[in-house]
């Protein structure tokens, strides 16, 4: 089973790829069907996603809420910009920790690869304007260390649908 590879590309991109032993159709569905998303998009052990709303159509919105059972949680909202069934998803999303984090723009593609699927993702970190707006809110108030760490651990796993 091939594992995820991940690398930075320039200053603002992270690209990754991962092989799955299932058809592109199945892998795509796992990223767009809320009932399936809820089963795996969970991050570290102990976290669950009690709220999973996903309207997988162009312009559709999604909202995921995670809880760790110890009173901590956060959520993500996002919009689908483009959807090409079983081949490609373009979406933008952001986390609320509870302060809003900068938008993450992501292109996910699914290609047949032997018996399975090669999924590639290309994340674009926020532009300078967004970062500037974030500075005005986040920096002054100072982020809780636990949240900062959580963001470091979870950011993209939380954005991946």
């Amino acid at each position, binding site marked *: *089973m091939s*594992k*995820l*590879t*991940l*690398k*930075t590309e*320039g*200053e*603002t991109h*992270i690209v*990754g790829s*991962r092989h*799955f*032993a*299932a*058809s592109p159709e*199945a*892998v795509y*569905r*796992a990223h767009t069907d809320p009932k*399936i998303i809820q*089963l*795996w*998009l*969970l*991050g*570290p*052990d102990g976290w669950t996603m009690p709220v999973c709303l996903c309207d997988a159509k162009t312009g559709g919105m999604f909202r995921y809420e995670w809880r760790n059972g110890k009173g901590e949680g956060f959520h993500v909202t996002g919009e689908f910009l483009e959807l090409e069934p079983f081949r490609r998803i373009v979406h933008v999303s952001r986390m609320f920790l509870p302060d809003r984090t*900068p938008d993450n723009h992501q292109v996910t593609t699914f290609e047949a690869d032997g018996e399975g699927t090669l999924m590639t993702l290309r994340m674009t*970190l*926020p532009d*300078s*304007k967004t*970062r*500037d707006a*974030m*500075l005005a809110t*986040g*920096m002054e108030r100072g*982020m809780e*260390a636990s949240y*900062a*760490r959580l*963001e*470091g*651990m*979870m*950011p*993209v*796993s939380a954005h*991946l649908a």
Partner: protein
Amino acid sequence: MQDALNLDTAFAALADPTRRAILSRLSTGEATVMELAEPFRISQPAVSQHLKVLEEAGLVVRRIEGTKRPRRLAKHGIEAMDRWLETLRKALETNYDRLDAVLAEMDQPNRTGGKEE
């Protein structure tokens, strides 16, 4: 204990996208606050605040040259970037390992029924 603290500080420092971008910029060479602020179109005080966090985490060091204080990436900074990426990779991989199992379940009915391609 000290190592754990440093790791936490480094992670917190790297959790911010602007700070990661500053580190990426410094990986191409030394830069002053003004030079760092320019491409990001954020104020110099804001950049200075980010640099302070990065310096406290031991990721960035400064040098004195007349009135200038050019910053460069500390060796620890490069390692921390790699570690941040690896942590992110592991977080994602946890999800994908789980997805492997979910996909195996989803495919069951198709496999026995002979899936059309």
